[in-house]
């Protein structure tokens, strides 16, 4: 049974990875906004922003940009899942003797692969713009781990959106607030510069602790308690989103 889950998931992941390879524009559209923001903030607005640290601004803001990249990338999972549901191929898979969870896992793994490519592209552009880090291999692995968790958590949210959407637009619109969330966090400016209620929200929403952890890892500073708050958020969102997605899926296929 387990081997069947693995082989069916592998087959179906191969299928959706092909979708991405055949339409590389999904990677381009995922990365174009973060790269534009990177350019805008570093070369236009960044000069006027006082982060209170000695880091260059591109170093300061890259973690937030990476989260925005992932938040815009996962919308495609909802979109592709919705198209499968509408086109009837979902029904075909469900009427076949395959491991039922493999249909969702294939989309999730594809999202992971596509988002890691997008993140790598954005980091490449940041390097060209002067992003520098002395992060060790271990630090990079920790950064990758956090980004993978972030992608998985948001992708399962995207699965919920894809399974329950009524229209194509609805399937991808859910990601807009997620893309916006980093702006009300420590991603671009220190939270201390914000009015009290906004600062309170910024300090207590998940993006700030994730951004602070990534920033500390890149700068080789101690991550402090931020990493635990970040992990608690990530695992919490992941578990809730996964449970929600599976519950909706069960209802849909039974």
């Amino acid at each position, binding site marked *: 049974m387990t081997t*069947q889950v693995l*082989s*069916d998931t592998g*087959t*179906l992941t191969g*299928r959706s990875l*092909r*979708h991405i390879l*055949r*339409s590389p524009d999904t990677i381009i559209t995922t990365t174009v906004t973060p790269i534009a923001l990177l350019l805008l903030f570093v070369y236009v607005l960044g000069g006027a922003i006082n982060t209170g640290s000695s880091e260059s601004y591109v170093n300061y803001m890259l973690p937030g940009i990476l989260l925005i990249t992932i938040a815009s990338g996962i919308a495609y999972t909802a979109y592709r899942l919705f198209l499968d549901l509408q*086109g*009837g*191929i979902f*029904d*075909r*898979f*469900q*009427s*076949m*003797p*395959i491991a039922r969870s493999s249909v969702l896992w294939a989309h999730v793994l594809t999202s992971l692969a596509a988002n890691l490519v997008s993140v790598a592209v954005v980091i490449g552009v940041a390097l060209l713009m002067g992003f520098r880090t002395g992060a060790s291999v271990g630090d990079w692995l920790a950064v990758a781990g956090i980004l993978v968790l972030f992608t998985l958590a948001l992708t399962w949210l995207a699965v919920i959106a894809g399974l329950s959407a009524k229209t194509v637009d609805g399937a991808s619109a859910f990601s807009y607030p997620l893309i916006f969330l980093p702006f009300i966090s420590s991603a671009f400016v220190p939270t201390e510069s914000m009015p009290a209620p906004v600062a309170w929200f910024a300090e207590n929403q998940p993006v700030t602790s994730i951004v602070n952890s990534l920033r500390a890892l890149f700068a080789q500073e101690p991550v402090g308690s931020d990493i635990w708050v970040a992990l608690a958020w990530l695992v919490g969102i992941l578990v809730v989103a996964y449970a929600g997605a599976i519950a909706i899926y069960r209802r849909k*296929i*039974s």
Partner: protein
Amino acid sequence: MSTKQMPEPAIRVQGIEKSFTDLSVLQGVDFEVAAGSIFALLGSNGAGKTTLVRILSTLLKADAGSATVHGFDVAAQPAEVRESISLTGQFAAVDGILSGRENLVLIARLRHLENPGAIADDLLERFSLTDAGKRKAATYSGGMMRRLDIAMSLIGDPPVIFLDEPTTGLDPQARIEVWQTIRQLADRGTTVLLTTQYLDEAEQLADRIGILHQGTIIQNGTLSELKRLLPPATVEYVEKQPSLEDVFLALVGDTGNPEEAPETVPTGKES
């Protein structure tokens, strides 16, 4: 693999009921389909044909009643049912981004068959899609898409095939192609349950026809049995005009057999 000592029907439907919120779609449907035969479920739009097919292919649970497919209960043994069936839904369930061949390989892999590439090539050949095999399925014509769809359903030789409105939206030539495919299936011993809203389709293909109306099967029989329900034919002399379909097919030089378009009898439309 199946027990062959008794002539068990390939599909047995008993008292199936299904409603959606306050809309009662199926109100006690009963019928049987003999193994190796073609059964047409005839009904107008919204009669519940698709709902019934979804129940039989384990995509939907019935509220009441029972159904077995290839000897397996659809509610209690869904995994075994899925091993025995293939569903070709109302909309071509084809991945448009993959090529025709890749679609076939995908299904062969999911059915855990050896040599998926060879299976795909064989089916492309059988369905005259070899030349188009490397092209994205999204570029196919409606008829080619349907042929690919049906070819995908044949992978693994399931003993029972469900075809939900297989020719809806197809042009007359493509329709004839699909009809030929379905006849070939039955010749190979596959049990076919097809739904249709076209009377001539049921007449052309089916060994038995069940008329689904207002949630139940109101009549079920062979074509001649159904015809006998009407008053005996009276002889009238009518000048035979070619139907527009005859004209169309003659003009475009179709190869399908130019049978006379059936004099369709309107079914009970009183509501």
